């Protein structure tokens, strides 16, 4: 079967497009998650037609089809969990059409997120979703996970910026859908489906006009709890900044040692706040937020002087994942979400869990959205340490759910959390999703063993979580 997949792909598309040697395939066995499995073949199509042909051949062979962007996902979404064919979209990385006047673009899925915003910047427009991985992650991958990022707070996530997609279905046929089409919103279903419904071969994105004015502030607080109270208070006051990020002492220290952007090292927590919009509103916006911060015991409040400093601050925040590597051999980044008023409570609980399991946990929140990224430090050479973070991570998730939260705010379910989906959805909820899966992919060839809980818990070895 496997031989037939590789040989048929090679025959149809040639060795430039199809890779089958073990050394070539190794890179496609991994993403940002810890588990790995070698595919039988990796296909790197140059256009939708080649991608569709590959899908048709895999479908005829009954082999899994695993779409792959940059492989930067943290939940195993791009791992070929059952082997089969990985389709890497990296060669399809062009902007096909740019319509500045109507603020939209048609792009190929392998285009890197940041490259899109850079390319359209001269026209005064930008692509809003900005996951921290945006320097490497692709638009197609972002579509798969419905990626977020700091600026989703006011601009919304990927799904709010995708106007339509072209996709290859499970028979290898190419379709195009748009949110403006009459009929069911297939676009809305495909975004966030983590490659389980089809292979996206182009994306129509909405672009936004750059705000006239932008201000970024750094506020320091004695501890995470007081900082999270400020976040809840800002939202409760009806203020939606464009971004509102929280970092605790451990995170700011590691960022600071790497980026030197002037985060106060003595503070227990730092908020990075951005407001944007009309120039007229900036002074009042700053005053309102600064007042809330002071009322909750802010130690300091500083405005970034200029665009260069703003960019440096954001680059440092988005580089936190890399910087943290300096202070721990390994870390596991959890992704969960709670209602925004619950931030002080969840902060308290995470501190308790850290103590109870004797795990060092750094806190990095897209706080305005209630989206938490606790960073659990460990040393993968120590079994006890690995065990503790798995337990602690699970308890953090359970605690978020108990507060009305959910198991993933932006990273996706992937392979990692498929067992946890049933913590937030019952069998009727999952059955409705299963119907959609059945329609798009009746033979479950697209990215198997992702999102959905596996029927019986088999004796699989508990994974070592994402390692950076």
């Amino acid at each position: 079967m496997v031989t037939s997949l590789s040989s048929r792909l090679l025959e149809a598309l040639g060795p430039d497009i199809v890779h089958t040697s073990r050394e070539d395939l190794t890179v496609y066995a991994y993403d940002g998650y810890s588990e790995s499995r070698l595919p039988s073949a990796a296909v790197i199509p140059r256009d939708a037609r080649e991608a569709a042909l590959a899908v048709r051949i895999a479908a005829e062979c009954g082999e899994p089809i695993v779409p792959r962007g940059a492989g930067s996902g943290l939940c195993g979404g791009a791992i070929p969990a059952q082997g089969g064919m990985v389709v890497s979209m990296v060669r399809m990385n062009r902007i096909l059409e740019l319509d500045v006047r109507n603020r939209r673009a048609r792009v190929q899925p392998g285009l890197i997120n940041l490259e899109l915003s850079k390319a359209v910047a001269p026209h005064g427009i930008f692509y809003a979703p900005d996951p921290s991985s945006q320097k490497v992650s692709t638009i197609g991958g972002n579509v798969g996970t419905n990626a977020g990022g700091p600026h989703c707070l006011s601009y919304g996530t990927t799904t709010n910026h995708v106007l339509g997609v072209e996709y290859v279905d499970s028979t290898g046929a190419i379709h195009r859908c748009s949110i403006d089409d009459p009929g069911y919103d297939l676009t809305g279903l495909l975004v966030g489906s983590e490659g389980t419904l089809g292979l996206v071969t182009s994306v129509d994105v909405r672009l936004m006009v750059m705000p006239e004015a932008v201000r970024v502030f750094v506020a320091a607080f004695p501890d995470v709890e007081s900082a999270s109270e400020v976040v809840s208070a800002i939202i409760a006051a009806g203020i939606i900044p464009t971004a509102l990020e929280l970092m605790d002492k451990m995170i700011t220290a590691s960022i600071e040692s790497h980026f030197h952007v002037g985060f106060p090292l003595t503070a227990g927590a730092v908020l990075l706040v951005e407001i944007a919009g009309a120039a007229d509103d900036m002074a009042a916006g700053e005053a309102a937020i600064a007042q809330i911060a002071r009322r909750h015991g802010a130690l300091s409040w500083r405005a970034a002087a200029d665009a260069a400093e703003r960019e440096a601050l954001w680059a440092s925040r988005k580089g936190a994942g890399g910087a943290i590597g300096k202070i721990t051999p390994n870390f596991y980044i959890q992704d969960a979400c709670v209602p925004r008023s619950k931030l002080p409570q969840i902060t308290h609980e995470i501190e308790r869990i850290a103590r109870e399991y004797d795990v060092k946990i750094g806190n990095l929140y897209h706080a305005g959205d209630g989206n938490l990224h606790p960073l659990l430090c460990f040393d993968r050479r120590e079994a006890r340490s690995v065990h503790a973070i798995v337990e602690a991570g699970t308890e953090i998730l359970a605690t978020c759910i108990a507060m009305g939260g959910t198991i993933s705010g932006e990273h996706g379910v992937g392979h990692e959390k498929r067992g946890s989906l049933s913590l937030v959805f019952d069998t009727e909820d999952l059955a409705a999703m299963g119907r959609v899966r059945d329609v798009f992919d009746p033979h479950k060839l697209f990215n198997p063993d992702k999102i959905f809980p596996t029927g019986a818990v088999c004796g699989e070895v508990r994974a070592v979580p994402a390692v950076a």
Partner: protein
Amino acid sequence: MSAALEPRVVAPGSAADAAALLAACAREGAAVVPVGGSTLQSLGNAPRRCDVLLHTSGLSGVRDYLPADMTAGLEAGTTLADVARVLGEFGQWIPFDAPRAPLATVGGTLAAGWAGPRRAAYGRPRDLVIGSTVALADGSLAHAGGMVVKNVAGYDMSKLYVGSLGTLGLIVRANFKALPRPPAHRVALAPLADDVRDRTLAALGHLEIEPSAALIFDGFAGVARFGDAGVRLLLTFEGSDAVVERATRGVRSGLGKAGIPETLLLDGGAAERALAEAIDAYIDVPGASLTYRSVGLPSTAWSRTRSAAALAREYGLHAESVADVRTGDAILRFSAADVATFAAVLGGFDAALHRAFERTTVLAGEPALRAAIDAWGAEPSTIATMRAIKARFDPTGILAPGRYVGAI
């Protein structure tokens, strides 16, 4: 609705009752048509059968509104006016921009897939939905999303139900992300004579502060009133007082340079009413008329209204229009002296209209005229997938059969 017998009217009082009712109807093969405020029942085709009219009036209320979280769980039958009132007390809102807010319901607005003129500024209702509960034909209650504003756990099923016109299930509740309500609201009205139109449209593209809605009315007498002007421009600006003031200066200067001497300003409640009345008019049915919505690029909205008017003349029809130059919608209303006159040319005209513009669907109209044509035009290329979805969710075809695109 063709049934010889009057349909049975039911109004379940809970989500569980609604689900049980759907299951019972599925067992009996009774066709169910969900009804909210009956404001957008003109969307889509008349269902082939209707044995049960399922009103959502018993499923109504703002249930889990947490102002500090800026999230709200709204039951399907809650009217948009009630939502605006309850959230307004906390300076928040959900910009539905749907017609007849005192009657229109949350469930109906979502099921209709309604998206109004200010979606360019605030997003569509679909973009603000963070969770949903839907009663399905097998009697199950399916939840999706939740009460958090960022959530990628499982498929985004709410997107599937929004715009499905009751053909997949009954939306019994939807959770929303609320937005801060802008403190100031101003409408600017201006006449748009032929000789200044192109310059004005160009000037709109250069305003420092973008209007949250920009509509050009041709006809639709009674709304966006400005003297006896035939073609009128309606702009809305929202934000802080300072921003609205600057926007006003920009509009006066920009429109003045384009050759428009006078702009009428409405503030606060008057501004809100002016926009609401304009949106209400989209679904008015004055006499023998038929209204379509053509969706397309903002840059072609105005030209589509002109092409449609020219086409109408060929068929002896009277044309009115709203060009929504921020979203790209063109609301196209055609009328004739009487139904028979319109009906005589309708087949050819409808076909020509669909040839001229893709994504053009019927929004409202005189029932006999609506019944004579398919509301949807050409089937999308993904119709087979849509039919398969329908078959999986409603295998016995009891939910608003025939109402949807491709006779789904």
